[in-house]
């Protein structure tokens, strides 16, 4: 029963990933696409949390930290590029 519930949550999370992907493909502005990518990064963290329980291992907690940090840094870099035209300022 527990396994069935976990697989069901994985299925629901993958449906939400597909919906984010649809928004990335057809989003009218670039900021929509950045928002969809940010949401995909955040949702993948939850995905790994469920896989950790399924495989009964604690070894993926590093991956959770690294993935959340990478998603944040990527989003900040992309939105700064969209706002000012450069990621690193020179002055």
């Amino acid at each position, binding site marked *: 029963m527990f396994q069935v519930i976990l697989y069901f949550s994985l299925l629901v999370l993958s449906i939400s990933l597909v919906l984010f992907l649809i928004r990335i493909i057809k989003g009218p502005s*670039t900021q929509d696409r950045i*928002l969809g990518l*940010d949401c995909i990064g955040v*949702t993948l963290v*939850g995905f790994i949390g*469920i896989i950790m329980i399924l495989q009964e291992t604690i070894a993926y907690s590093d991956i959770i*930290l690294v993935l959340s940090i990478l998603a944040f840094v990527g989003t900040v870099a992309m939105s700064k590029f969209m706002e000012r035209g450069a990621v690193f300022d020179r002055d």
Partner: protein
Amino acid sequence: MNVNEISEFIAAVLMLAGSIMAVISAVGIIRFPDVYTRSHAGTKSSTLAVLLTLLGAFLYFAIAEAFVSVRLLLGILFVFLTAPVAGHLIIRAAYRAHVEMADITIEDELKEVISQKEEEKDQSHLR
């Protein structure tokens, strides 16, 4: 009910709540009319979804195997702190790039404030 069943029950409830919250946020991202309302759906509820699933994993390992993982707690704290900041930055870039709002928007108060500030700057420049 022994300890194993209790931990499985808690983890299952939190995982289900988290995944349903994620799909609610995805439906909001598909259905809302412009980028500002979409970010409202995307950042808040997907942050809550991740918090629920990670809390489920943390409680499962803490109760069933008596292993308190500090790295998981750090991950929860980091997602909780950074996801709203990322949404704020995206929306700020969208407003600066003049992304259009939906037709049902009634009032844009930030536009009036920005134009007022620019007028003041021009006048002080003339003097």
